[in-house]
């Protein structure tokens, strides 16, 4: 049929070359240096002497087509119809005429988009879908991010921090995105084992697959009413939800026990120190929509204490490494509990095996 013959597949993404503005095409691979003339603005200077100005605006990541068209209107007006997005959900307007920077920023402000996130600042919070679209979410993502950025926006629109601050949120331990290597990671957690639906499980799941999905071998086969199903050894379950992902008859969402944990001191970049995982700071905070005041307060406190004590360039983890974890817990007032001590694989490598104990 004609329809079948014309059907296109496997064409891949469009070539990026058609989306690069002329100044980038002319200076591709020959940029010489850059500067940050003001918060939220970059200037890149080419070997040719050409200058490219970037204005970075924060976005909620969740965008309607109506708003995208408004963003396009601004890029048409000021950037010759070119723009890009960053790996942290920011919108970048690419300008060649510095006289357009102020009017663009004014129009962005009128449309509700703050400019910032460059240099020693808080960039946008990388986050996941949460209750908007995910089956395994232990918390919402967009709501916490909105409430927190309302509080911390001053660190986005200025460069008043000692170093870069990267906050990320994942609504469960699947962790879409690099949440586990952030200065501050906000992680949705479940705290109860899955509830097996023995009626449904034999109809929709393969028992061997469900058993194999468990990293702690907590799932065992069992016969109920003559049908093959599974049971969970609850003391072995660490609530990872992997079984639920392979078998929808094992839900573990729980309004009373689901909530949020806070992790600190991770980083992605190799600059100075190696890429590092974030470590547990606060084991559990409740889900308290719509504005999660406990989470906002806890994260704001962490930012404030770090900003007050860190030296220039010190990221959260580098600061903690210098002062030591005991002092981190004292300065932040966070209680140290048995949940803070690792008891999973290689736990012993995280125990202190010296008497190098800082004040």
């Amino acid at each position, binding site marked *: 049929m004609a329809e079948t013959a014309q059907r296109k*597949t496997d064409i*891949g*993404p*469009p070539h*990026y070359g058609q*989306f690069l503005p002329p100044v*980038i095409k002319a200076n*591709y691979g020959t*940029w010489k*240096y850059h500067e940050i003339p003001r918060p939220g603005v970059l200037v*890149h200077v080419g070997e040719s002497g050409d200058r490219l100005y970037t204005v970075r605006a*924060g*976005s*909620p990541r*969740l*965008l*309607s*087509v*109506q708003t*995208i068209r408004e963003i*396009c209107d601004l890029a048409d007006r000021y950037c010759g*119809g*070119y723009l*890009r*997005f*960053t*790996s942290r959900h920011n919108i970048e307007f*690419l300008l060649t005429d510095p006289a357009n920077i102020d009017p663009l920023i004014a129009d962005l402000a009128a449309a509700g*988009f*703050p400019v910032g996130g460059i240099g020693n600042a808080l960039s946008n919070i990388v986050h996941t*879908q949460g*209750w*908007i*679209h995910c*089956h395994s979410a232990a918390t919402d993502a967009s709501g916490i991010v*909105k409430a927190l950025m*309302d509080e911390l926006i001053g660190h986005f629109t200025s460069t008043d921090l000692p170093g870069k601050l990267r906050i990320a949120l994942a609504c469960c331990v*699947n962790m*879409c995105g690099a949440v*586990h*290597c952030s200065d501050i990671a906000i992680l949705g957690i479940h705290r109860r084992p899955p509830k097996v639906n023995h009626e449904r499980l034999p109809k929709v799941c393969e028992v061997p*697959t469900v058993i*194999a*999905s468990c*990293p702690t071998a907590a799932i065992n086969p069992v016969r109920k009413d003559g049908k093959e199903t599974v049971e969970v050894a609850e003391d072995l379950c660490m609530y*990872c*939800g*992997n079984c639920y*992902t*392979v078998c929808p008859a094992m839900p573990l969402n729980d309004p009373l026990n689901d909530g949020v944990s806070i992790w600190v001191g991770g980083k992605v*970049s*190799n*600059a*100075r120190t190696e890429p590092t995982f974030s470590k547990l700071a606060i084991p559990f905070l409740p*889900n308290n*929509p*719509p*504005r999660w005041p406990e989470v906002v307060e806890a994260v704001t406190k962490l930012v404030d204490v770090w900003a007050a004590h860190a030296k*220039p*360039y010190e990221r959260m983890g580098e600061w903690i490494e210098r002062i030591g974890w005991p002092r981190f817990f004292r300065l932040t007032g966070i209680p140290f509990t048995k949940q803070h001590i690792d008891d999973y694989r290689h736990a012993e490598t995280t125990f202190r095996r010296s008497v190098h104990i800082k004040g």
Partner: protein
Amino acid sequence: MFEPGARLRGAGGSVMPDDTSPTPKLDELEKGPWPSFVKELKRAAGANAMAEQLLGVLELSYEDRVGHWKHGGVVGVRGYGAGVIGRYSDVPEQFPEVAQFHTMRVNHPAGWFYTTDALRTICDIWEKHGSGLTNLHGATGDIILLGTKTESLEPAFADLTANGFDLGGSGSVVRTPSCCVGPARCEWACFDTLAFTYDITQHFQDELHRPSLPYKFKIKASGCANDCVAAIPRADLSVIGTWRGPIGIDQAQVRAYAEGGMDVGADVCDRCPSTCMAWDGETLAIDNSTCAKCMHCINAMPKALRPGPERGACILIGGKAPIVSGAMLSSVLVPFMKFEPPFTELKDLIGRILEVWGDAGKNRERVGEFIQRVGLGNFLEAIGVEPLPEMVRHPRENPYVFYEEYFEEEPK
């Protein structure tokens, strides 16, 4: 309770007063200075019944503090097994418009560059076939088109491909590769991240669209060790730009930074992890033989310092988030590779990795976990890569060494 069909916004002057709003909790998130996703939901809801009922589902979640989505079901476009995330509501009677609410992942252009024409085209397609809501972008990098019905998938796909866009990856496939801004706008890019990402994406179209692997396989490329796309924490195959040879120094510009107030001794030299720098107030000296190429000094003084002359990439393997058996960072597989189109050496290497892991990996076992299970040494042997000291922090400490070969007395 939210009533399907209630007007939340739009023409006709029927916007509800606050005290009778169907979404009192979400309305709280329209307040405050940061751009509001609730405003976005309401904008889309003014023109689209699915977006309108999504608001209702989310308000319900804010009431009862659990999500209301079910995963699963085989749903997609003809001939593909990836690119569509099937999603169903667990309260379909209450919200029939979002009983099916599937997401389409659309492979973004490398570096996330767009013309407004291209973005408007995407908007038009999603206004016609979906909820009118998007994410720019998803965690892997794709354009996320949020929410549509099964019957709309094929028409939306036809319109996307007619306009030069294709679906990205999902499930047990090579996922949509992504990269930093690279040489398009960064003086630190040690290779062409955009050219590589476009090339490798086209090379693996079949593996990207049709699940044939034990689990997902993510490829991410950053042009320098700052790693702006977080390749080491989250990609199974991480490509990081690096260099050989001395860091380029413009001593006059170093002095200009010092005169401008920078404490070159404390903030640059003392922060060098290799302690390979010295500043006497006039001249910056670097012992390049012990430089770890971490980027700190170059980050601090972009006008004065630049990566060395011989540029290429370090290839690392095995990064992942916790599921299933714990989070891992990628570790070194090839310390330095000359890295230019058509990137044949790395394509061949990835091909061998996919073959070995594809054959012997267990269901939902990422390549990093597979390497843990079989041993990095055995894995290297299987993919034909020589062991190198650059791959480890230090040689093994434990004496339980496996040998496949041993000596026997010759029979007399």
